[in-house]
């Protein structure tokens, strides 16, 4: 029995020592989910970045940049059948080794409670974007049963936002094993829920990682064709 349970870091399980000061005394204490040391290992995305996918330019070779777009987005936008579907991606952190470990534990090991680590950041972003619909990227039925939960939906639930299941997956193969060109030239992997009107709506797609943007662009294309006014995406990692 712990009479006075101390907050423990959800990532490293060390005890979190609360900061003592006037602020802590007079304002309502925020709940602490991670320790300052783990917090410091996340690298926030800031500075100049690609207009669409949010890829920071400071770590990118100049030859992979075309104006205010990165070369990947430039190539997507060049193709008429993919042009202008994804308006903007928002990502919280760089996909560094530390974040890789945390996301792997969250998604593949299935440590659901780690969604709380990202929830405060998701709340801030979603308050800023103010979407009409929040759509988690769906898993196939078989993968959902294997993992026990959908990691994108878990992030939204932990942030206190409702999810709208506008999409279902028709293909079940794993994305992570495919090359870029295989991903891009894949037939449509999603279908849209027909009974919800998307006319003029602002939709935000939610996923854990933005890698090539192919999943998100496939989903965005479908939703725009179904009438949505704008599609943004929100992910933990870029």
């Amino acid at each position, binding site marked *: 029995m*712990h009479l006075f349970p101390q907050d*423990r870091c959800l990532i490293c399980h060390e005890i979190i020592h609360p900061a003592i000061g006037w602020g802590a005394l007079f304002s309502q204490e925020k709940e602490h989910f991670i320790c300052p040391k783990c917090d410091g290992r996340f690298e926030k995305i800031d500075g100049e970045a690609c207009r669409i996918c949010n890829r920071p330019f400071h770590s990118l070779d100049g030859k992979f940049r075309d104006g205010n777009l990165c070369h990947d987005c430039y190539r997507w936008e060049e193709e008429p059948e993919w042009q202008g579907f994804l308006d903007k991606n928002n990502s919280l952190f760089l996909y560094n080794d530390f974040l890789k470990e945390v996301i792997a*534990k969250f998604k593949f*090991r299935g*440590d659901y*409670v780690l969604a709380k680590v990202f929830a405060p950041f998701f709340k801030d972003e979603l308050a800023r974007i103010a979407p009409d619909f929040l759509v988690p990227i769906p898993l196939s039925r078989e993968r*959902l049963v294997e*993992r*026990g939960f959908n990691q994108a939906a878990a992030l939204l639930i932990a942030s206190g936002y409702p999810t709208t299941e506008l999409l279902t997956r028709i293909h079940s193969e794993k994305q992570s094993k495919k090359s870029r060109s295989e991903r891009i030239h894949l037939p449509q992997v999603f279908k849209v829920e027909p009974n919800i009107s998307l006319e003029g709506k602002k939709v935000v797609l939610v996923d854990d990682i933005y890698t090539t943007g192919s999943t998100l662009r496939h989903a965005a294309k479908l939703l725009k064709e179904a009438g949505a006014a704008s599609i943004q995406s929100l992910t933990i990692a870029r």
Partner: protein
Amino acid sequence: MRFTIKNGILLPSNTIEDSRPISQIPALPQPPLNQDYHFNGNLQQLLTGKQLLLNDIPFPLNEIQSHYENGYVTYRHGIIYKGKQPACARCGNKDQQWFAYYPCARCGETCLYCRQCIMMGRISGCTPLIGWNGPVPDTIHPEKISQWQGTLSKGQSEASNRVVGAIQENKELLVWAVCGAGKTEVLFAGIEAALAAKKRICIATPRTDVVLELTPRLKAAFPEITVASLYGGSEDRHLYAPLTIATTHQLLRFYHAFDALILDEVDAFPYTVEESLQHAAIQARNPASAMIYLTATPNEKWQRECRSGKRAFTTIPARFHRHPLPVPEFIWCGNWQKRLQKNRMPVNVLRWINERIQANKQALVFFPHISLMETALPILRQFAQTIEAVHAEDPDRKEKVQKMRAKEIPLLLTTTILERGVTFPNIDVAVIGAEDTIFTESALVQIAGRAGRSKDHPKGKITFFHYGKTDEMLKAKRQIIEMNREGLKRGLLDC
């Protein structure tokens, strides 16, 4: 997963109304063994002595279920409730802070899960632990099991006989062998005896590198025996073997598997800190089985139990090369931390290091904390630019140890990470700040055990620089002197 009970048998079910998650079914029925059933031999190999999750088993659920219905497979609770208090059946966790909940797509309820052992796959309220209840796979051993050609020292062979006895009689035994005594060779006769009696035997050690180092040695000693080598991500996961070498963590996947379990470095992290590993070791053994503990430095409680006769033990007080253990020397070095803050170091420490560099004698220098070590590094590099420092999170750790072996580094600064396991043939050893609480008796004995390892250079100098002697330092020195005395008395030393 949800189950329903029909005719005294558990059936997986997807309908919510008449079924429950497995943890909410208090008594799990086990059908009797159907002798006429043709079981799958691969499933038998995989499951014998194990406790696995459905995701770990590359066979479809209906095949597993059919083996269960015929009595060959067991379902156990993943989470066990005592009243309202949950416990993880695999790692023994009962701590509220190590449990969490999630909305589960498998059982459709808010499911409790254990975070402590989640790296081995998630155990939740609706998870069955799957095991084997049928016959054990047949193993046919060659007439001559051991091909080991080496010889044992007198001390080793005395200990070896005790190990054989303990394994034959299913007893517990502590083998207390000094660093460099040659612990592994002491096990060979015991392993052979176990295998000859068709016993399943396992050597568990805290670290993956030790598993990787032991595997080829055991395969060479027992060339016709199947050896499973288990660590995170190893390929032998599905292999049934009479002889298993595993990291202590891998024991979490075993249940009543071994007739003899050898636990290496029982005093070391993480075994002593993580109760789950101690739980795992107990679960992995058969109720009637032998347990051999190996260590150079048993903790105080165990030492007391040995002295008062409560714990069966045997010592190997001398090294294989029959020279006494070098005894550490204590040297007071003043408030060295304060000096370091001013970017200086005690004069006697600097002199000690300079002498080594001048004489071209390699040395390991231990520090209690990374930050202090990193402040000291630039100061010490005035003697040689090639001096390096290493710690647990150093990405270049392996390369630096390799360079030290190749004699490309004259002096290696380190935290306690190199306190055990690594051997350099001819080195001196210093501890800066031996009074720090991180340097326990066992840590200091292990550190002292780095010096004088090879028979060509059996003498090495060990110096503990301190700012006030501690009990732990005195106990460490006493333990080393005591071992030398015993070695002399039993005629295990030449001097």
